[in-house]
Protein backbone atom coordinates (compact mmCIF):
# COMPACT_ATOMS: atom_id res chain seq x y z
CA UNK A 1 0.00 0.00 0.00
CA UNK A 2 2.77 2.42 0.97
CA UNK A 3 4.71 1.43 -2.11
CA UNK A 4 1.72 2.16 -4.30
CA UNK A 5 1.09 5.65 -2.93
CA UNK A 6 4.79 6.42 -3.17
CA UNK A 7 4.63 5.51 -6.85
CA UNK A 8 1.54 7.67 -7.45
CA UNK A 9 3.12 10.65 -5.72
CA UNK A 10 6.34 10.36 -7.70
CA UNK A 11 4.44 10.17 -10.97
CA UNK A 12 2.40 13.23 -10.03
CA UNK A 13 5.58 15.11 -9.10
CA UNK A 14 7.15 14.17 -12.42
CA UNK A 15 4.11 15.45 -14.33
CA UNK A 16 4.17 18.71 -12.36
CA UNK A 17 7.87 19.14 -13.03
CA UNK A 18 7.28 18.51 -16.71
CA UNK A 19 4.46 21.09 -16.88
CA UNK A 20 6.55 23.61 -14.95
CA UNK A 21 9.54 23.06 -17.18
CA UNK A 22 7.44 23.56 -20.30
CA UNK A 23 5.81 26.70 -18.94
CA UNK A 24 9.23 28.09 -18.05
CA UNK A 25 10.59 27.40 -21.53
CA UNK A 26 7.53 28.50 -23.45
CA UNK A 27 8.48 30.83 -26.27
CA UNK A 28 6.87 34.20 -26.97
CA UNK A 29 3.61 33.69 -28.89
CA UNK A 30 3.63 34.22 -32.61
CA UNK A 31 1.43 37.16 -33.56
CA UNK A 32 -0.45 34.97 -36.06
CA UNK A 33 -1.81 32.99 -33.10
CA UNK A 34 -2.91 36.05 -31.13
CA UNK A 35 -6.43 37.43 -31.11
CA UNK A 36 -6.73 40.91 -32.62
CA UNK A 37 -7.72 43.49 -29.98
CA UNK A 38 -8.11 46.53 -32.23
CA UNK A 39 -8.39 47.40 -35.90
CA UNK A 40 -7.29 50.87 -36.91
CA UNK A 41 -6.04 52.96 -39.82
CA UNK A 42 -2.39 53.95 -39.67
CA UNK A 43 -3.23 57.65 -40.01
CA UNK A 44 -5.76 57.53 -37.19
CA UNK A 45 -3.34 55.62 -34.98
CA UNK A 46 -0.64 58.22 -35.55
CA UNK A 47 -2.98 61.14 -34.89
CA UNK A 48 -4.25 59.54 -31.69
CA UNK A 49 -0.72 59.10 -30.35
CA UNK A 50 0.31 62.60 -31.42
CA UNK A 51 -2.62 64.31 -29.77
CA UNK A 52 -2.87 62.31 -26.53
CA UNK A 53 -0.17 59.76 -25.91
CA UNK A 54 -1.47 58.67 -22.51
CA UNK A 55 -4.95 57.94 -23.81
CA UNK A 56 -3.55 56.16 -26.86
CA UNK A 57 -1.27 54.07 -24.66
CA UNK A 58 -4.31 52.88 -22.70
CA UNK A 59 -6.00 51.84 -25.93
CA UNK A 60 -3.11 50.27 -27.81
CA UNK A 61 -0.04 49.61 -25.66
CA UNK A 62 0.91 45.93 -25.71
CA UNK A 63 -2.25 45.12 -27.67
CA UNK A 64 -2.39 43.04 -30.82
CA UNK A 65 -3.64 45.39 -33.49
CA UNK A 66 -4.35 45.34 -37.19
CA UNK A 67 -3.16 48.52 -38.86
CA UNK A 68 -4.15 49.39 -42.40
CA UNK A 69 -2.41 51.98 -44.51
CA UNK A 70 -0.18 52.88 -47.39
CA UNK A 71 3.43 51.70 -47.45
CA UNK A 72 5.67 54.76 -47.58
CA UNK A 73 9.05 53.16 -47.05
CA UNK A 74 10.61 49.72 -46.69
CA UNK A 75 13.95 49.38 -44.95
CA UNK A 76 16.34 46.58 -44.27
CA UNK A 77 18.84 46.87 -41.44
CA UNK A 78 20.97 44.01 -40.10
CA UNK A 79 18.49 41.44 -41.38
CA UNK A 80 15.44 43.17 -39.95
CA UNK A 81 12.80 44.56 -42.26
CA UNK A 82 10.83 47.64 -41.24
CA UNK A 83 7.75 48.77 -43.10
CA UNK A 84 6.70 52.42 -42.69
CA UNK A 85 3.01 53.26 -42.96
CA UNK A 86 1.35 56.63 -43.50
CA UNK A 87 4.44 58.80 -43.22
CA UNK A 88 3.41 61.66 -45.45
CA UNK A 89 3.24 64.64 -43.13
CA UNK A 90 6.47 65.49 -41.43
CA UNK A 91 8.73 62.74 -40.23
CA UNK A 92 6.44 60.56 -38.16
CA UNK A 93 5.13 57.22 -39.29
CA UNK A 94 3.81 53.94 -38.03
CA UNK A 95 6.94 51.78 -38.10
CA UNK A 96 6.29 48.06 -38.29
CA UNK A 97 9.20 45.81 -37.44
CA UNK A 98 8.48 42.65 -39.40
CA UNK A 99 8.85 39.12 -38.09
CA UNK A 100 10.58 38.12 -41.33
CA UNK A 101 11.62 39.67 -44.62
CA UNK A 102 8.64 40.74 -46.73
CA UNK A 103 8.15 41.82 -50.28
CA UNK A 104 5.91 44.87 -50.46
CA UNK A 105 6.01 47.82 -52.79
CA UNK A 106 6.01 51.43 -51.68
CA UNK A 107 2.59 52.88 -52.44
CA UNK A 108 0.62 49.71 -51.89
CA UNK A 109 -2.17 49.48 -49.34
CA UNK A 110 -1.63 46.74 -46.77
CA UNK A 111 -2.86 45.46 -43.43
CA UNK A 112 -0.24 44.66 -40.81
CA UNK A 113 -0.88 42.68 -37.66
CA UNK A 114 1.48 43.20 -34.78
CA UNK A 115 1.97 44.25 -31.18
CA UNK A 116 2.03 47.98 -30.43
CA UNK A 117 4.97 48.87 -28.21
CA UNK A 118 4.26 52.59 -27.97
CA UNK A 119 5.26 55.98 -29.33
CA UNK A 120 8.61 57.74 -29.66
CA UNK A 121 8.92 59.97 -32.73
CA UNK A 122 6.80 57.32 -34.43
CA UNK A 123 4.31 54.67 -33.42
CA UNK A 124 6.30 51.45 -33.06
CA UNK A 125 4.86 48.03 -33.85
CA UNK A 126 6.86 44.84 -33.28
CA UNK A 127 6.58 41.16 -34.28
CA UNK A 128 4.55 42.20 -37.34
CA UNK A 129 3.12 40.09 -40.14
CA UNK A 130 1.26 41.13 -43.27
CA UNK A 131 -2.31 39.89 -43.51
Amino acid at each position, binding site marked *: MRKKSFLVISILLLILLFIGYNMYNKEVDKVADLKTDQKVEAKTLLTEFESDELAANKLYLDKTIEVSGMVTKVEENEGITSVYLASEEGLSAVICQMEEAVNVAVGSEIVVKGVC*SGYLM*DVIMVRCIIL
Partner: protein
Amino acid sequence: MMMIIKKMIFILLVLVSGNQLVAQKYFTKKGEVSFFSHAPMEDIKAVSNTGSSVLDAANGKLQWAVLIKSFAFTKALMQEHFNENYMESTQFPKAKFTGTIDNMTAIDLKKDGEYNAQVSGVLEIHGKEKKIATNAKFLVAKGKIIATSVFKVYLADYGIEIPSVVKDKIAKEVEISIKSNYELLDKM
Protein backbone atom coordinates in the same frame (compact mmCIF):
# COMPACT_ATOMS: atom_id res chain seq x y z
CA MET B 1 21.66 102.64 -45.30
CA MET B 2 23.65 101.35 -42.35
CA MET B 3 20.49 99.70 -40.99
CA ILE B 4 19.81 97.91 -44.25
CA ILE B 5 23.34 96.56 -44.45
CA LYS B 6 23.16 95.43 -40.83
CA LYS B 7 19.85 93.70 -41.53
CA MET B 8 21.24 92.03 -44.61
CA ILE B 9 24.27 90.77 -42.72
CA PHE B 10 22.00 89.47 -39.99
CA ILE B 11 19.78 87.64 -42.49
CA LEU B 12 22.85 86.18 -44.19
CA LEU B 13 24.20 84.97 -40.87
CA VAL B 14 20.90 83.36 -39.95
CA LEU B 15 20.71 81.66 -43.32
CA VAL B 16 24.25 80.36 -43.11
CA SER B 17 24.04 79.13 -39.53
CA GLY B 18 20.56 77.80 -40.12
CA ASN B 19 21.78 75.72 -43.01
CA GLN B 20 24.63 74.46 -40.96
CA LEU B 21 22.35 73.39 -38.14
CA VAL B 22 20.09 71.45 -40.46
CA ALA B 23 23.02 69.82 -42.17
CA GLN B 24 24.55 68.66 -38.92
CA LYS B 25 21.69 66.80 -37.33
CA TYR B 26 21.81 63.05 -37.48
CA PHE B 27 19.17 60.54 -36.49
CA THR B 28 18.20 56.92 -36.34
CA LYS B 29 14.92 55.12 -35.82
CA LYS B 30 16.45 51.66 -35.85
CA GLY B 31 18.85 51.88 -32.96
CA GLU B 32 19.72 48.56 -31.40
CA VAL B 33 19.59 48.46 -27.62
CA SER B 34 20.30 45.18 -25.88
CA PHE B 35 20.92 44.16 -22.33
CA PHE B 36 22.63 41.26 -20.75
CA SER B 37 22.64 40.03 -17.21
CA HIS B 38 24.47 37.01 -15.95
CA ALA B 39 22.47 34.81 -13.61
CA PRO B 40 23.39 31.45 -12.05
CA MET B 41 20.51 29.56 -13.65
CA GLU B 42 20.72 31.18 -17.06
CA ASP B 43 21.66 34.46 -18.68
CA ILE B 44 19.01 37.06 -19.20
CA LYS B 45 19.16 38.95 -22.47
CA ALA B 46 16.86 40.86 -24.76
CA VAL B 47 17.10 43.21 -27.68
CA SER B 48 15.15 46.07 -29.21
CA ASN B 49 15.81 47.32 -32.72
CA THR B 50 13.51 50.30 -32.65
CA GLY B 51 15.43 52.83 -30.55
CA SER B 52 15.26 56.47 -31.66
CA SER B 53 18.11 58.90 -31.43
CA VAL B 54 18.98 62.41 -32.58
CA LEU B 55 22.51 63.75 -32.53
CA ASP B 56 23.34 67.38 -33.22
CA ALA B 57 26.93 67.45 -34.45
CA ALA B 58 27.04 71.24 -34.11
CA ASN B 59 26.93 71.14 -30.31
CA GLY B 60 27.16 67.43 -29.42
CA LYS B 61 23.65 67.24 -27.98
CA LEU B 62 22.48 63.63 -27.96
CA GLN B 63 19.08 62.12 -27.29
CA TRP B 64 18.01 58.51 -27.10
CA ALA B 65 14.71 56.81 -26.41
CA VAL B 66 13.61 53.21 -26.48
CA LEU B 67 10.29 51.56 -25.74
CA ILE B 68 10.46 48.96 -22.97
CA LYS B 69 7.77 46.83 -24.57
CA SER B 70 9.81 46.58 -27.76
CA PHE B 71 12.42 44.37 -26.09
CA ALA B 72 12.20 40.84 -27.44
CA PHE B 73 13.03 37.79 -25.31
CA THR B 74 12.98 34.19 -26.40
CA LYS B 75 11.06 33.03 -23.34
CA ALA B 76 7.54 34.33 -22.89
CA LEU B 77 7.68 34.10 -19.12
CA MET B 78 10.85 36.17 -18.93
CA GLN B 79 9.36 38.86 -21.16
CA GLU B 80 6.24 38.96 -19.00
CA HIS B 81 8.21 39.24 -15.75
CA PHE B 82 10.50 41.87 -17.24
CA ASN B 83 7.54 44.04 -18.26
CA GLU B 84 5.22 43.44 -15.34
CA ASN B 85 7.38 42.82 -12.27
CA TYR B 86 10.59 44.71 -12.94
CA MET B 87 10.16 47.52 -15.47
CA GLU B 88 6.42 48.10 -14.93
CA SER B 89 6.35 49.09 -18.58
CA THR B 90 2.67 50.00 -18.73
CA GLN B 91 3.35 52.78 -16.23
CA PHE B 92 6.83 53.59 -17.56
CA PRO B 93 6.80 52.75 -21.29
CA LYS B 94 10.11 54.41 -22.21
CA ALA B 95 13.74 54.63 -21.25
CA LYS B 96 15.43 57.89 -22.23
CA PHE B 97 18.84 59.42 -22.35
CA THR B 98 19.48 63.14 -22.73
CA GLY B 99 23.04 64.36 -22.75
CA THR B 100 26.02 65.50 -24.73
CA ILE B 101 29.09 64.18 -26.44
CA ASP B 102 31.63 66.17 -24.48
CA ASN B 103 34.44 65.97 -27.04
CA MET B 104 32.30 66.59 -30.13
CA THR B 105 34.87 69.05 -31.50
CA ALA B 106 37.31 66.14 -31.91
CA ILE B 107 34.80 64.12 -33.96
CA ASP B 108 34.18 64.75 -37.64
CA LEU B 109 31.23 62.68 -38.82
CA LYS B 110 31.89 63.76 -42.41
CA LYS B 111 35.37 62.27 -42.44
CA ASP B 112 36.16 58.54 -42.45
CA GLY B 113 37.75 57.31 -39.28
CA GLU B 114 37.26 55.86 -35.85
CA TYR B 115 36.49 58.29 -33.06
CA ASN B 116 36.24 57.83 -29.33
CA ALA B 117 33.48 59.81 -27.71
CA GLN B 118 32.89 60.78 -24.11
CA VAL B 119 29.22 60.82 -23.39
CA SER B 120 27.54 62.22 -20.30
CA GLY B 121 24.00 62.99 -19.38
CA VAL B 122 20.89 61.80 -17.64
CA LEU B 123 19.50 58.31 -18.09
CA GLU B 124 15.87 57.71 -17.22
CA ILE B 125 14.68 54.15 -16.65
CA HIS B 126 11.58 53.03 -14.75
CA GLY B 127 10.66 56.69 -14.17
CA LYS B 128 13.88 57.40 -12.23
CA GLU B 129 16.66 59.68 -13.45
CA LYS B 130 20.35 59.28 -12.86
CA LYS B 131 23.45 61.01 -14.19
CA ILE B 132 25.76 58.71 -16.11
CA ALA B 133 28.99 59.01 -18.05
CA THR B 134 30.27 56.48 -20.54
CA ASN B 135 32.43 56.02 -23.60
CA ALA B 136 31.19 55.46 -27.11
CA LYS B 137 32.78 54.82 -30.45
CA PHE B 138 31.92 56.35 -33.81
CA LEU B 139 32.96 54.51 -36.92
CA VAL B 140 32.67 56.59 -40.07
CA ALA B 141 33.27 54.78 -43.34
CA LYS B 142 32.11 55.80 -46.81
CA GLY B 143 29.55 58.20 -45.41
CA LYS B 144 28.07 55.56 -43.09
CA ILE B 145 28.12 56.31 -39.40
CA ILE B 146 27.93 53.57 -36.80
CA ALA B 147 27.93 54.39 -33.12
CA THR B 148 28.45 51.82 -30.38
CA SER B 149 28.59 51.93 -26.63
CA VAL B 150 28.56 49.47 -23.74
CA PHE B 151 27.89 50.46 -20.15
CA LYS B 152 26.53 49.08 -16.90
CA VAL B 153 23.55 50.16 -14.87
CA TYR B 154 22.65 49.18 -11.34
CA LEU B 155 19.03 48.17 -10.92
CA ALA B 156 18.88 49.80 -7.48
CA ASP B 157 19.68 53.22 -9.00
CA TYR B 158 16.43 53.11 -10.92
CA GLY B 159 14.23 51.76 -8.16
CA ILE B 160 13.89 48.37 -9.84
CA GLU B 161 13.18 45.92 -7.05
CA ILE B 162 14.15 42.30 -7.10
CA PRO B 163 11.74 40.08 -5.15
CA SER B 164 13.57 38.54 -2.16
CA VAL B 165 12.83 34.98 -3.35
CA VAL B 166 15.05 35.45 -6.39
CA LYS B 167 17.41 38.01 -4.87
CA ASP B 168 20.46 35.74 -5.22
CA LYS B 169 19.50 34.54 -8.68
CA ILE B 170 19.33 37.90 -10.43
CA ALA B 171 22.35 40.11 -10.93
CA LYS B 172 22.20 43.59 -9.42
CA GLU B 173 23.83 45.12 -12.47
CA VAL B 174 22.92 44.87 -16.12
CA GLU B 175 25.13 45.45 -19.12
CA ILE B 176 23.58 47.61 -21.83
CA SER B 177 24.87 47.69 -25.41
CA ILE B 178 23.97 50.30 -27.97
CA LYS B 179 24.54 50.05 -31.68
CA SER B 180 23.18 52.49 -34.15
CA ASN B 181 23.50 53.77 -37.68
CA TYR B 182 23.13 57.52 -37.95
CA GLU B 183 21.69 59.17 -41.02
CA LEU B 184 21.81 62.82 -41.93
CA LEU B 185 18.54 64.53 -41.18
CA ASP B 186 17.76 66.47 -44.33
CA LYS B 187 14.08 67.19 -43.83
CA MET B 188 13.44 69.60 -41.01
